């Protein structure tokens, strides 16, 4: 699942993830992403922007980590928030990984490999 309020970013991340063998579901903010999960979507991994309207990425991470049924979902933040303290906050909230924007496709692939979620 790619969660970002920028459609350009959803396109770019979607393309990278499809190239790596994933099917991709998109959401423009945390609230819509939760709605997708509520209606049965069970992504292996969610790439989550931080600053989004309605529900931001940190709130989304908090919401997902509270739910036993969503235990399986790997959460990787992909955001321009790049202060050390912000990264710590995100990891403490339960994000598994963190990519700072701007990023290259290799960087995303590297992190997915680290997380063990790559298709190969």
């Amino acid at each position, binding site marked *: 699942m790619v969660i970002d309020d920028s459609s350009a970013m959803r396109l770019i991340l979607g393309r990278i993830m499809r*190239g790596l063998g994933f099917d991709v579901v998109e959401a423009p903010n945390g609230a819509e992403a939760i709605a997708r999960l509520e209606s049965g979507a069970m992504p292996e991994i969610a790439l989550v922007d931080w600053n989004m309207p309605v529900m931001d990425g940190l709130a989304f991470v908090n919401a997902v980590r509270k739910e036993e049924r969503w235990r399986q979902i790997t959460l990787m933040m992909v955001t321009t928030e790049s202060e050390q303290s912000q990264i710590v906050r995100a990891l403490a909230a339960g994000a598994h990984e963190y990519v700072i924007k*701007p990023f290259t496709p290799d*960087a995303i692939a590297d992190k997915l490999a680290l*997380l063990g979620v790559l298709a190969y």
Partner: protein
Amino acid sequence: MTISSTTFAFVSDLVRQQAAIVIGPGKEYLVESRLLPIARDAGLDDVASLVARLQANPDERLRRQIVEAMTTNETSFFRDRDPFNALTQGVLPDLCRKRVATRRINIWSAACSSGQEPYSIAMSVLDHPLITSEWQVQVLATDINEEVLARAEQGRFSQLEVNRGLPASMMVRHFERAETDWRVVPALRSMVRFKSLNLNEPFDLPFMDVVFLRNVLIYFDAATKAEVLQRVRRIMKPDGFLFLGGSETTLGLDDGFDRVPIGTATVYRPKGAGPVDLPSLAGPAVAGAGLANLGGGMPGARSPGGPSAGNGSAAAAASAAVPRSRTGGSPTRARPASPAAIDQPPAHSPNGWPWGTPPSSAAWPAPQPPRQPLN
């Protein structure tokens, strides 16, 4: 859509022919991500079309572009992952047992380039629960290029560089912001000593327990490779460990080494070194951020005479607050670590395990046979 095996085979054959570099299985994503921009620039939709075009019309420029894109020096942290998993799970525990008398481990990163490799090694050491403050572990980082050496000594990396291969939990503990860059914290910096060295000339170094000689032999001809390997072997402890690059081997170059698999990695040991004692593969998983955070707070200082590991409030807060994520040397598929040996993970770890099992798999995967080194 992932690239097909025929497309991948074409690209890896081409690269092997043109650059004598092997792109092994598992690197399909690299081919996709490196060549897609070239395909786009050529007005094509995907990598398969790019390959088709090259097959239809031998185009020297395009061929060179492709080879260059695939062989650009990938500078990333924990490059290829497996050797660092082997270091953490096999090599360091073995040395911790064998070097109990001296409590000293010497590690050499023999073509350290911009520094990602020695700092990755040092981070693995700093985070290792078996290496407590009584141990003296030194990482020697050498390179022939004084300019990159100077850069490596700074320990400064751009945002784009720290995005590569470095688990976020390690980044927040071992690095701090420095203007637009990220810089290694003093505790990490003090573990690494930098020195200029030409592998092609005789060198005089202390005996090494572990040597990383990765992706540098490819630049030498066979005779030089053999000489370098022999020189390296002479300064290795008889029960030491040598890591080569993914597609490299000592076979046919130096028969003084045995090839020893550790998990999915291959390590070379001087002949007669004996087996590697690997109880840690069934014992506590040691890689990564999590175990180091047990009991809260930073682990004790690792480096000789180094500052205590309180690297400032941000890092200390990070270690206390960060859940045991699945990153930080997270192993690949063969991962038989026994769940019972791992301490209770914090409630919000995925699947209850700090690392190893991707959340989607229900049970530990069966151990895989060691991957054959690529020749």
